[in-house]
């Protein structure tokens, strides 16, 4: 059961080859066994899962099942889940039980999906390796001494290890795509505004977007359709209809124009990674696509732009964590100032504090114009670059991450080193365009991802382009050896 994709599970559940309860229990068992190795979960919601499984089986019995009924998933612990601990990977929310469900959670519950648990993540979504979590690092199922990527490391590891067939996640600078690349799975970040941010704990409001980590583009298409859509509770949510993503997965690619970003294929791209990307592009050419070089000259400034805008917004978004109404409060505060400083100083980890301080600095009097306003202008340049590129091509294809998974602890001493992991992914967040990553090979036995980006609201096209590649190749079906057996030791 664990080797099946979500689409295959759906078919077999409908064919009554096994019950939702059987599937759920099997996965819960795998999760429990994998926890000491992966540490992918903060909370396993066994009781909830079994209750939902029971209801799903009843729905199947009475013929009332929908396309997603009974399909299990995990939620990144950044999505508020009613009655269930929601920690955001932080000591600050270690004692926080959310009184409400995020819109994404509500929608997938309503579709009949079964929640297996809340996955581990970099604290407040700040990180590219899942090493900043209060609950300890998550390990890469392909090699437990390596990072799974971040910030959605828990979701990625869970899916790659086949302990959950699909997981929700969020992407602010690459936090879905980069772990997808490092874990050999499919990850999609939709267009900004496509998926509601209500109930998705905010890191950087103009960059955050909810998405999925899955075993295939087809799986992602199935669940994205249910997840996406206008939400009146989110003022930045866009009111355009959600297409039937699954329906266009097999559209032929003849005439597809693929852009290769000159600035990404320049110096600095690892030769092994480049080789795999170029092999993948040959597959696309065989399918009828043509390749064009495009120039996005402002794109190399993505990382500095991001590290002004994201921390600035985060410094403000995280100001609500003050020990007053919920969350961590320091012991015996002497006075109000002490309450604030120690609750926040003790409740937040180092990376979060670092970014809050950067954000505070770039917004402060005297620096606002030089940093924040400047960054927002460069952001405009980058966005215009993407727009111009999409006037010439349909999609952009390139590397997702500069390298394969690195060792736990290898990059933690130098934040800049860590930040450069997102060099290829950040641009899409700044411009708000959709992008996904799918596996395209291995280097030294470790997965490499290929990124596919498109103009606003081109998710259907991206999933189609990804799916057609996955029909020609089987990188996405490769499983980490340690997690191949049904019963994990």
């Amino acid at each position, binding site marked *: 059961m664990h080797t099946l994709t979500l689409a295959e599970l759906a078919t077999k559940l409908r064919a009554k080859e096994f019950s939702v309860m059987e599937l759920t229990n099997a996965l819960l068992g795998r999760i429990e066994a994998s926890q000491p190795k992966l540490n992918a979960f903060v909370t396993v919601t066994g009781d909830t899962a079994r209750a939902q499984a029971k209801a799903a089986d009843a729905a199947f019995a009475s013929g009332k099942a929908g396309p997603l009924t009974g399909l299990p998933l995990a939620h990144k612990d950044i999505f508020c889940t009613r009655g269930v601990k929601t920690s955001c990977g932080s000591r600050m929310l270690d004692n926080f039980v959310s009184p409400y469900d995020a819109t994404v959670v509500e929608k997938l519950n309503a579709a009949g999906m079964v929640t297996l648990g809340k996955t581990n993540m970099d604290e407040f979504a700040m990180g590219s390796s899942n090493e900043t979590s209060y609950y300890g690092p998550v390990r890469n199922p392909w090699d437990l001494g390596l990072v799974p990527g971040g910030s959605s490391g828990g979701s990625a590891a869970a899916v790659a290890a086949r302990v959950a067939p699909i997981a929700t996640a969020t992407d602010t600078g690459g936090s879905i795509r980069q772990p997808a690349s490092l874990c050999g799975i499919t990850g999609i970040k939709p267009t900004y505004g496509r998926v509601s941010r209500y109930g998705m704990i905010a890191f950087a409001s103009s960059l955050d977007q909810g998405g999925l980590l899955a075993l295939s583009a087809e799986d992602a298409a199935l669940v994205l359709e249910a997840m996406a859509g206008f939400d009146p509770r989110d003022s930045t949510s866009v009111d355009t209809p959600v297409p039937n993503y699954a329906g266009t997965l097999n559209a032929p690619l003849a005439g597809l124009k693929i852009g290769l970003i000159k600035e990404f294929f320049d110096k600095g791209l690892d030769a092994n990674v480049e080789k795999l990307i170029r092999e993948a592009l040959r597959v696309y050419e065989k399918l009828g696509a043509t390749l064009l070089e495009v120039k996005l000259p402002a794109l190399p400034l993505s*990382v500095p732009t991001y590290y002004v805008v994201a921390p600035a917004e985060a410094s403000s978004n995280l100001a609500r964590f003050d020990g007053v109404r919920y969350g961590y409060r320091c012991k015996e505060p002497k006075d109000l100032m002490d309450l604030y400083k120690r609750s926040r100083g003790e409740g*937040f980890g180092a990376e979060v504090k670092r970014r809050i301080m950067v954000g505070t600095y770039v917004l402060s009097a005297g620096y606002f114009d030089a940093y924040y306003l*400047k960054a927002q202008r460069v952001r405009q340049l980058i966005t215009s670059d993407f727009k111009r590129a999409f006037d010439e091509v349909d999609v952009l294809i390139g590397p997702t991450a500069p390298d394969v998974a690195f060792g736990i602890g290898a990059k933690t001493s130098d934040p800049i080193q860590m930040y450069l992991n997102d060099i290829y992914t950040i641009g899409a967040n700044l411009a708000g365009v959709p992008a996904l990553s799918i596996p395209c090979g291995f280097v030294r036995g470790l997965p490499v991802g290929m990124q596919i980006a498109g103009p606003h609201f081109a998710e259907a096209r991206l999933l189609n382009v990804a799916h057609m590649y996955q029909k020609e190749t089987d990188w996405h079906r490769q499983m980490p050896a340690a997690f191949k057996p049904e019963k994990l030791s």
Partner: protein
Amino acid sequence: MSLNRDQINSIAHLARLSLTDAEIPVYQDSLSKIVDLVGQLEAAQTAGIEPMAHPLSGLSSRMRPDVVTEGDQHELYQRNAPQVEAALYLVPKVIE
């Protein structure tokens, strides 16, 4: 380094973050490196470019009708409160 100790202290104060003496140089070092990184923006040619606050250009504010849609659920909401008395959130005395 781009930032000195005093700046680190005043930033931490503005952000209400306690820093131990040992932590100050550590943050001074990493923050300075980050400031150097973002200093790369200075060279960008942005004359005449508008700052972009939203990726969704051309969209304007959605508004909702003036209707009360919420009831009193303070008991539920206050379950997470560190200190509550008579439905008030308690903090050390606020001097006005």
